[in-house]
C-alpha cells in the first residue's frame, strides 16, 4: 500500500520533470515575447510591442508568406501523390515493388544536412539552382515518404472486399476509390498532410541550403536575424510558430491513431 503510493508519487514527479524539461524553455520564450525588456530582465512587464513591430518587419513577413505558401503547396502535392502512390502499392503487384517500398524509408533516416547538400549539388547540376522552387522540390521530396508511410499504414486496416463489393454493384475504379476507399483512408490522408505541412513549415536545414538571400523561408530568416543580433521579435515569431505547429500536431494526434479504432 505504502510502496504503491511512493511509486505513484515518483511516477508523477518523473512525468512532471519530463514535461517541465520539454515545455519550460518554450513557456519562458513565449512569456519573454510579452515582456517589455529586450534582455530578459525582470520584473515582468506586459507588452505586445514585439508582436506589433513584427508587423513592420517586412523581411520576416515576406519569409513567413514564403514558408506558408511552400508548406501548403508541399502538402497538396504530397497528399495527392502520396495517397495515389499508397493506393498503387496497395492494389497492384509489379516488378520492383518491394525495392521501391524499401527505398521509401532511407530518406527519412538520412540527416537533413546531407540531403540538403546533395540537393544543392543536384539542383545546380540539372540547372534548377537555388530559390523558392528548389525549396519546394526539396520539401516535397522530404515529406512524400511520410505521407506514403502514414496512408499505407491506414490502408492496412482496409478490407479489400469493400472494393470488390463496390465493383459488384457497378462502380468503376474512380467511383470505388472516391466513395469507398478514400473515405476509409481519410484519417490517414489528413494526418499525412499535417505531417507534410509540419515537415515543410519547420524545415530549416534543406531550406537554408536552397534559399537565395532575398527569397527565403521563415526558419532561415529567423536564423539570419539571430546572427545579426537578437531581438524579442524572434521570441514573438517563434511563439506564433510554436502555437501553429502544436495545433497541427494535436490535430494529427486526433486524426491519426495508427490503425486503431476509426
Amino acid at each position, binding site marked *: 500500500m505504502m510502496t504503491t503510493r511512493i511509486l505513484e508519487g515518483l511516477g508523477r514527479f518523473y512525468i512532471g520533470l519530463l514535461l517541465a524539461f520539454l515545455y519550460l524553455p518554450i513557456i519562458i520564450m513565449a512569456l519573454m515575447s510579452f515582456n517589455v525588456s529586450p534582455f530578459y530582465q525582470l520584473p515582468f512587464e506586459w507588452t505586445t510591442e514585439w508582436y506589433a513591430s513584427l508587423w513592420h518587419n517586412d523581411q520576416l513577413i515576406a519569409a513567413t508568406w514564403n514558408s506558408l505558401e511552400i508548406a501548403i503547396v508541399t502538402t497538396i502535392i504530397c497528399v495527392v501523390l502520396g495517397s495515389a502512390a499508397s493506393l498503387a502499392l496497395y492494389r497492384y503487384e509489379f516488378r520492383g515493388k518491394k525495392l521501391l517500398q524499401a527505398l521509401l524509408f532511407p530518406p527519412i533516416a538520412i540527416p537533413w544536412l546531407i540531403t540538403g547538400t546533395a540537393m544543392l549539388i543536384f539542383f545546380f547540376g540539372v540547372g534548377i539552382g537555388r530559390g523558392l522552387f528548389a525549396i519546394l522540390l526539396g520539401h516535397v521530396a522530404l515529406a512524400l515518404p511520410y505521407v506514403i508511410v502514414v496512408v499505407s499504414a491506414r490502408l492496412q486496416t482496409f*478490407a479489400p472486399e469493400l472494393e*470488390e463489393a463496390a465493383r459488384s454493384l*457497378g462502380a468503376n475504379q474512380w467511383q470505388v476509390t472516391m466513395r469507398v476507399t478514400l473515405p476509409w483512408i481519410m484519417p490517414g490522408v489528413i494526418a499525412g498532410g499535417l505531417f507534410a505541412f509540419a515537415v515543410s513549415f519547420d524545415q530549416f536545414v534543406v531550406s537554408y541550403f536552397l534559399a537565395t538571400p532575398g527569397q527565403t523561408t521563415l526558419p532561415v530568416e529567423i536564423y539570419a536575424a539571430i546572427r545579426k543580433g537578437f531581438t524579442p521579435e524572434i521570441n514573438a515569431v517563434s511563439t506564433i510558430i510554436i502555437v501553429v505547429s502544436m495545433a497541427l500536431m494535436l490535430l494529427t494526434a486526433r486524426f491519426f491513431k495508427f490503425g486503431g479504432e476509426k
Partner: protein
Amino acid sequence: MAGVQVSNVSRSFGAHKALDDVSIDFADGGFYALLGPSGSGKTTLLRQIAGFDFPDSGRISIGGESVERVPVEKRRIGMVFQNYALFPNMSVADNVAFGLSVRGENKAVIASEVQRALDLVQLGKLGRRRPHQLSGGQRQRVALARAIVTKPRVLLLDEPLGALDKALRVDMQIELKRIQREIGITTIFVTHDQEEALTMSDRIGILRDGRLVQEGPPEEIYDRPKSEFAATFLGNANIFRGDATGNGIRLPDGTAIAAKVGDRLAGGAKASCAVRPERIRIATDAVVSDAADANMLKGKVSKRIFAGNNSTYFVERAGQTLKVIVQNTGADRLAEGQDVVLRWSPESTVLIAAG
C-alpha cells in the same frame, strides 16, 4: 433475370489447378448450391461467374451473353460476401443505395427503391443506422438488400451464413429462400455446409480439387451418389468395397451385397457400395426377417450416441465400423457390446465404380 452457363472453364494459379474443365448450367430462377471442402474451387468458380477473375479457358454466359472477359462492374450481378462487406462510412440506406447511385439514378427513385429493398429484408426502419450498430443477422440482410436493389441478373452468395450462429443461420436460410422465391432471381450459393446445401437449393454441384464431381437435385445426389466422395461429403454413408458381381459386390470375406441403384458394372471390376445409415435396420437376431431386406451382416454394437429424436449405433464388423441411425420410436434400445444383425434392401444400396 437470366440463367448462367459455365462451359469448360479452367483456371490455374501457378501450378495449382483451381478449376479444371468445369461445366454447369444454372437455369433461370434456380437456387444452386456449390458445395465442396475448402480448396475445392467453389469460391474460385463463383469469382469467375462474378467477374473478379477471368478463366484461362472456357466460356461463361449470363442470359445468353458471353461475359468471360467482362469485368465485374459491367456484369450486372449482385453479390453477398462472407463478411458482408458493408461500407462502414455509410448508413444502411446509403449502403443499399450505392449500386443505384453509381448508376446515376435520380434521388426519388433511389429513395423508393432502397425503402422497398429494406422492407423486403424486414429492415424498413433501420435505414439511418450505421453498419456497426447492427447485429450479424441484420448486416446479412442489409448486404442482401444492397445486392438485389439494382435488379441484378444473378445473385451470388459466398458462404453468406458462415459468420452467423446456428439458430440465426436456420432463420436466415428460410428468409433467404423466401426472398429468392419472391423476386425469382437465379441464385448461386457457395457453401461448405452440406445441410445448408440440402435444405436450400434446387440443385447442388459438388466440387473437389477443381473438378465438378456431381451435379443435380439434392434428392438425386443424396439417393444416387456417383462417387464415394459425393456419398460421404453430402450426408453420411457406409461404404463397402469389393468386386462387382453384376448385381452388387462381393466383399473380400465372400459376403455378397446386392445393389439395385447406381451404375451397372460388369463382374470382376473393383466397386463400392454406399448405404445411408438411416436405411439400415438393426436387430438382435435374424428372426424378424423381411424378404425385401436382402442384405444382411452380423456385427457387434461398439457405441451408441443418443440424440433425442434418434440414436446412432456404431457397429463393428470385420474390421469396419458401420453407422446405423435409428429413429426414437420408444422401442427397446440396444446396449453397447450386444451382437446384432443389420439388414437393408438392395434399393437402398448404391453401386459405385471404384475410382
